[in-house]
């Protein structure tokens, strides 16, 4: 294959990565923005989404598309409910102290991972894509499902943006983000906003997990890389800034696709982690984001 088509393939793979990443990172960013909580267990919610998708599709009879649709609806809801419980039982009692919540979510990460290992096992299982359809380019064929993932992620993110900017609930969340105390004095039930935000953030990660599972299988350790990448995206995009997060997801996803294609993935990850550390040290508001 010539260089051009090779680059096209790399860019398309990068776009898929970017789409999944944008969903997961939007959840992380939302939680940090509104609650000032750095959720280290975020990758595990992603993993739970994928594992639950496997469980649901194996249980639901009928055509793959129907089973997958069921998974895409149920898995994020279950994970969101779990997250809401974790918020009420743990984070709320810590008064959302930033450092204490990090320690607690590290604990949560271990607990969820172990639960998945004990109940689901160490093996990776595939999930059938809801439809089989290949786009034929002159040089290679490409999975139509992957393009569907990009489209679906785009729609969900658009819906999220509309929710945050056009609905009352979104307004309340943004108000809480700007000033928790004032929001409280205006009668906003901050506890409920926080619980809802944490659930929404986890649900987004789970949905990303569901979307990715027909491409890359479900496995109990799969939350690790998305966590790291989401962190990278959220920090480079500017902590708590949704628009910055989206731009950064595109940049990171595309460059990850390209760099991984032409260099080793390990080198790409080393460069990305160093970049994040340097951004936090020298430009804490992120490369694209407004000041926090």
């Amino acid at each position, binding site marked *: 294959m010539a260089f051009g088509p090779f680059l096209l393939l790399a860019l398309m793979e990068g776009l898929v990565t970017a789409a999944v990443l944008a969903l997961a990172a939007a959840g992380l960013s939302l939680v940090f923005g509104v609650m000032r909580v750095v959720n280290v267990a975020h990758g595990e919610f992603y993993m739970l989404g994928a594992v639950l998708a496997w469980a649901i599709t194996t249980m639901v009879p009928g055509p793959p598309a129907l089973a997958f649709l069921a998974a895409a609806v149920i898995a994020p809801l279950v994970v969101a409910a779990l997250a809401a419980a974790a918020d009420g039982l743990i984070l709320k009692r810590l008064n959302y102290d930033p450092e204490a919540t990090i320690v607690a979510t590290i604990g*949560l990460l271990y607990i969820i991972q172990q639960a998945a290992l*004990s109940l689901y096992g160490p093996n990776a299982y595939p999930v059938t894509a809801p439809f089989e359809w290949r786009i034929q380019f002159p040089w290679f064929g490409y999975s139509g499902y992957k393009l569907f993932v990009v489209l679906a992620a785009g729609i969900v993110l658009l819906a999220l943006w509309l929710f945050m900017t056009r609905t009352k609930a979104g307004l309340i969340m943004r108000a809480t983000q700007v000033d928790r105390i004032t929001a409280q004095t205006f009668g906003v039930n901050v506890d409920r906003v926080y619980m809802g935000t944490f659930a929404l953030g986890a649900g987004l990660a789970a949905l990303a997990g569901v979307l990715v599972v027909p491409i890359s299988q479900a496995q109990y350790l799969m939350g690790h890389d998305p966590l790291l990448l989401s962190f990278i995206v959220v920090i480079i995009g500017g902590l708590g800034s949704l628009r910055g997060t989206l731009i950064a997801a595109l940049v990171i996803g595309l460059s990850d696709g390209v760099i991984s294609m032409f260099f080793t993935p390990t080198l790409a990850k080393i460069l990305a982690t160093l970049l994040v*550390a340097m951004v936090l040290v020298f430009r804490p508001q992120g490369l694209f984001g407004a000041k926090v």
Partner: protein
Amino acid sequence: MRVWALHLTLLAVLFSAQFWLSPYHATNLARIMVLAVFAMGYNLAFGYTGLLSLGHALLLAAGMYAAGLPAQLWGWNAGPTFIAGVAGGALVAAALGLLALRTAGVSFMIVTLMFAQAGYLTLLYFAPVTGGDDGFAIAASSRTLMGFDLSTDTPRFLAALTIFAAGLLASLILVRSPFGRTMVAMRENEERSRMLGYNPFSVKLTALTISGLYAGAAGAAYAILFGYVGASFATIQYSILPMLYVLLGGAGTTLGPFLGALLMFALIEAATRITTAHQFIVGAALVVLILFAPKGILGTIRERWARWLP
């Protein structure tokens, strides 16, 4: 007075342990003492100075590889190997601090996490030299000090105890010194400390470097006493463990790190008989501690009953 008595009694009990413990348990205790040195270093940064790092695995691995690579490549013996490890830990900590200490709080946690992750990936990237996740064994000649093979039972135990004792007594002297008071002042109220004439950056950098010295010593000791070096010691897991030990035993107490390491080991050992889910124990311990006993065991005892505990 009673402070010294308490610490020396503990060391005496540990010394006697080699006579009444089975070889299996004595080896475990040696391992615990080495990891406790790591945790003591973590405690100096986190417990006393208030630097909550998520990247100490980098410092442990720095000590381990600074000791292991010269042993592997040039056949150094145990003495210089250990010194190289200590220096490696301190040096990497100082470099980490120069960058990471420009940030504070949550940013500091993430920056240290990211640098440690980059360090781990670098070890993987250079797997032909570092052995990657599989690591490599340290040759017998590099485990030998004054004719004793330090990876055999009795010499290993005594070497671990010596390093532990040195670390413990040094940390006791340090935290009771004027500089120890300055470290605590940074933790309690950085702005006030600045207006008393202290440069927060240099105080924190010194504390982190000392912490790295401990981590380096632990990493080098582990390499020599257990004859193995591997990238798995650079994973996030090994940044979490010292935090867990310190939180359990009591942050900002001299004996907390050892107590936490000992109890956590015992807990996992006991739990393995019932279940293989020891990750669950680690996770649950973190959540329970941070929720219900953020001061840890010795921190709570100090608050309630024994104000004199250092």
